[in-house]
């Protein structure tokens, strides 16, 4: 029996949290993540979840408290965006290196300055080297589904890493769409019990956690952590299949959309993929051989899957909703590494910074090979 509701991405994630019923949620408000915590706080206040919400005094403390809770044996979740993620960045790295399986909802929002509350992916890109797992939702349904999957992924003994479920700020967080919720019991059975190797509340077998490491050991710890990130790809694939049995919706590290016989493909993250799919459908009606490769898992980056999916595609364009001044835009850089030596023509464009919309006409121009390096920018668009 389907529970289909009209929910924003933020509300959908709040419902996933209600069903997960985490033990502790330390959290600090920031636009556009606020609908998540406000909706969730009301659900808790009405007794629909038993979570201990800790209204901390900054995002840095939110992630810090999250590590304390997670390593004390509590299933822990939080949410943030943009400046909040930037402020907690120090601790995000530590959460990954301390192998704390925290699940965090990220409402993607541009990093200051200027201060801007709208969507781009610069916040995710800021912490791409932190070792946390980053999954990108295309719409509210995916935001919900990926949040349900996230605790199993984070807590898997081969993984034990924080998982960020990213959804575009305002575009997904604040836009209402039909979302099918799974039954509470299905979610509960799917996520199971929380288990970590060593709890700091274990006084009978005490452990020292968060050590100081000299050059003789630091490198080995970083490799151990990176190996866990690499191992998580296989775990996500398994969980995606298991989830498909329950929900009828499958998830993988990438999503191929009409790539058969495509001579040009666009790669994108997030809600833009949805717009691209519409344009692909229209162009395909006109016989244009175009397609889309959506990246669902940005970290770990699915290099092999990208190379395999685009093997027979002559021309690839990567759309980046973040820039790297003085360097290569982040998604473009990853794809270039994945496709090195493949022989396809690779180009990229930056778009949508600070929430600027990307229109179907812009995407048509991309497929026609006529898009500038900075789509939608007023003024000179070429790179030096």
């Amino acid at each position, binding site marked *: 029996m389907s529970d289909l509701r009209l929910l924003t991405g933020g509300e959908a994630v709040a419902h996933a949290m209600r069903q997960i019923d985490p033990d502790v949620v330390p959290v600090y408000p920031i636009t556009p993540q606020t609908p998540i915590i406000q909706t969730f706080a009301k659900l808790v206040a009405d007794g629909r979840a038993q979570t201990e919400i800790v209204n901390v005094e900054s995002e840095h403390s939110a992630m810090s408290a999250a590590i304390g809770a997670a390593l004390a044996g509590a299933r822990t979740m939080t949410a943030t965006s943009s400046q909040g993620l930037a402020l907690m960045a120090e601790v995000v790295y530590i959460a990954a*290196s*301390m*192998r704390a399986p925290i699940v965090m909802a990220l409402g993607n929002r541009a990093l200051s300055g200027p201060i801007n509350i709208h969507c781009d992916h610069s916040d995710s890109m800021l912490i791409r080297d932190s070792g946390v797992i980053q999954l990108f939702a295309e719409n509210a349904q995916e935001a919900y589904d990926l949040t349900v999957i996230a605790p199993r992924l984070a807590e898997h003994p081969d993984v*034990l890493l924080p998982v960020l479920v990213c959804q575009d700020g305002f575009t997904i967080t604040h836009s209402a769409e039909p979302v099918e919720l799974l039954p509470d019991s299905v979610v509960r059975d799917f996520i199971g019990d929380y288990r970590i*190797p*060593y709890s700091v509340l274990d006084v009978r*077998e*005490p*452990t*020292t*956690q*968060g*050590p100081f*490491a000299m050059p*003789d*050991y630091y*490198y*080995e*710890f970083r*490799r*151990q952590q990176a*190996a866990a990130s690499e191992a998580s790809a296989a775990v996500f694939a398994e969980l995606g299949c298991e989830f498909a049995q329950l929900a009828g919706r499958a998830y993988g590290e990438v999503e191929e959309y009409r790539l058969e016989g495509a001579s040009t493909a666009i790669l994108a993250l997030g809600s833009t993929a949805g717009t691209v799919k519409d344009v692909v459908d229209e162009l395909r009606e006109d016989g244009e051989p175009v397609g889309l490769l959506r990246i669902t898992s940005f970290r770990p980056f699915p290099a092999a899957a990208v190379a395999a999916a685009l093997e027979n595609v002559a021309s690839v364009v990567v759309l980046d909703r973040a820039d790297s001044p003085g360097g290569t835009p982040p998604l473009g850089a990853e794809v270039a590494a994945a496709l090195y030596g493949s022989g396809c023509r690779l180009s990229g464009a930056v778009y949508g910074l600070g929430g600027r919309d990307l229109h179907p006409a812009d995407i048509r121009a991309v497929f026609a090979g006529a898009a500038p390096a900075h789509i939608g920018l007023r003024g000179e668009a070429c790179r030096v």
Partner: protein
Amino acid sequence: MAELTPWQHLPVAGAVRPDTAIRPVTGGWRTGERPEADLPACVNCLLCWLYCPDSAILVESEAFNGFDLDACKGCAICAEVCPVGAIAMVAE
């Protein structure tokens, strides 16, 4: 010197169990003097035990029971705080 562990065999996130961890010897920090107790003078007040930064005063059944010279760094605080002057620093 203990052999260094390859990354595959490290505990997850470096969690260390005290019962299995190496305990470094810091007695080598001393620079020529070590504490010595005049047992008949000792009144078992245990102040030295509490003051010692290196937990190097051994106690058995709530009575002074010697110095852990593997830990003692020779700071001489015990000699200084003993209320009956039962500890002296002597040449090593």
